[in-house]
């Protein structure tokens, strides 16, 4: 697992993926920070983390999805991975952790904005901490979904597009749920409620407000674990097809 992890992480920097992601993240997050925090004369960063950075994270994770398995399959380097005495779970975890490290590195760019707020006002350290924690947990879930999508295609563009589409659909679950709530009878209300809960981003709300909700933590960890398991199964199944 460690070999795969190291190779992935070094690979991000070797082929400039890491620098591109840092640049995208820095540019977009700085833009959102200026518009929605700095120019609003507020030290509250909940809106930045809880709304606008979602779009940046979707872009970053979708680009990461291109590399996970699709590129390996396309370049036939997967033949090396699967014919060595490494378990598939080790390969999946190695790639996942490398993706997480890069994602966390990207999100740490936001610390710059904390320092900027500190220069002009008083940052709410507690809320900032919960926002960072929520962002890491959200990323853990998002990257596992990206890994899963990537394991199903050998086309990196499809992997990126599929991952972005999955996140956008999940985001829209709330809208569909609200629509259904006004249409379905009372006994079917569990349906829109359940649908709304599928929205990964919806679970972030409490983190934005400075709370660490246990249900959201469990939800994100469960999503991450489930999709890691599913990814390993997809890769294993591919050998049998």
């Amino acid at each position: 697992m460690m070999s795969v992890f190291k190779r992935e992480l070094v690979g991000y920097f070797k082929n400039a993926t890491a620098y591109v992601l840092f640049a995208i993240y820095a540019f977009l997050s700085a833009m959102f920070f200026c518009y929605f925090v700095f120019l609003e004369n507020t030290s509250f960063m909940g809106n930045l983390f809880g709304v606008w950075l979602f779009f940046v994270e979707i872009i970053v994770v979708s680009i990461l999805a291109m590399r996970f398995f699709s590129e390996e399959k396309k370049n036939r380097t997967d033949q090396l991975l699967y014919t060595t005495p490494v378990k598939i779970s080790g390969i999946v975890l190695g790639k996942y952790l490398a993706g997480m490290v890069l994602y966390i590195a990207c999100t740490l760019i936001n610390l710059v904005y904390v320092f900027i707020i500190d220069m002009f006002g008083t940052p709410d350290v507690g809320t900032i901490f919960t926002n960072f924690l929520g962002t890491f947990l959200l990323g853990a879930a998002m990257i596992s979904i990206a890994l899963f999508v990537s394991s199903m295609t050998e086309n990196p563009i499809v992997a990126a597009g599929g991952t972005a589409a999955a996140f956008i659909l999940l985001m829209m679950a709330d809208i569909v749920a609200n629509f259904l709530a006004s249409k379905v009878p009372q006994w079917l209300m569990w349906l829109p409620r359940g649908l709304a809960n599928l929205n990964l981003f919806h679970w972030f709300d409490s983190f934005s407000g400075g709370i660490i909700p246990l249900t959201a933590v469990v939800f994100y960890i469960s999503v991450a674990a489930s999709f890691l398991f599913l990814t390993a199964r997809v890769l294993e199944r591919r050998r049998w097809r």
Partner: protein
Amino acid sequence: MIEVTGLTKRYGKKTVVNNLTFTVRRGEIIGFLGPNGAGKSTTMNMLTGYTAPTVGSIRINGYNLLDAPEKAKAAIGYLPEIPPLYMDMTVNEYLNFVFGLKKCEFPRKEHLNEICEVVRISHVRHRMIRNLSKGYRQRVGFAQALINDPQILILDEPTVGLDPKEIVEIRTLIRKLGQTRTVILSSHVLSEIQSTCERVMIINEGILVADALTEDLARSAAANSRYIVRIAAPEDQVVPVLSAIPGMLKVEIQGVMEAGTVDVLVEAEKDVDIRRALFEECAKRGWYILVITPVGVSLEDIFLQLVEQTSSASADGPLTLGGKDDKDSEEKPAPAEEDTENEEKEDDAQ
């Protein structure tokens, strides 16, 4: 060392590999021969654990590849048709990565130095893989396959796309590696198998159609003795006169290559040395034999013959010669299924 029993791979309704059964012993260099789409790469992928068989079992050093994949894979070094290289790494980084991936327990630096010496890539170790020529990439692929010091080396078409000089170098390397290891080499280049391997398995449409020592296979197929003869004689008289020689099966004019002579292909029965009778007959008529060249049967002829046989009719089982492996001859594969148009799927699978 390798025991393959009833190995079958189906993609949907298409059978790409059909009931392969064979044993490979320690120290053998085996050529796995077949036309494109015959199922060679799929078989190799199954032998290395990259894909799983639909039916059948593979045992490597006594370990079942499905039950104990880590132990079985630890004994294998695999070089696929396209070497699995990361273009964004240097050779050194790549080999270090593979060293860790294969969980090698040798002293890292010394071991990698040794491998690089064997495949002669020491001078390119600090270069990016994407900047290497195809031949060097292939060598790096070899190094990757050798890193865990495998007892079994599986090479899938290792010389495809290389220039003639590189081909010679890679073949020499294979022979060298084969001195201490079991090597399975797949190829559709017949001369490569003939020059490198002691035993050949021919596969067509997923079926094992021959399993024999290379020289036995060539000898057995040389059913009749054939010669090209250049005779200074009247062209119109040559065929009737030579055809009348006892034991002669066929006389065929090949053309006139030299003024006043004619080139003739003569084919006689296997046990008849037609040369003496031919000489006497020509001498009697005052004809001069200027050139006499034996026409050998190459592996290519055998290959085409076997492939044609299996393509046109269902195969009864592999042609097993030379007594290399009695077990193999007893375990003949099942007849071909009707639906064996598997080339496209085979390509996909690769």
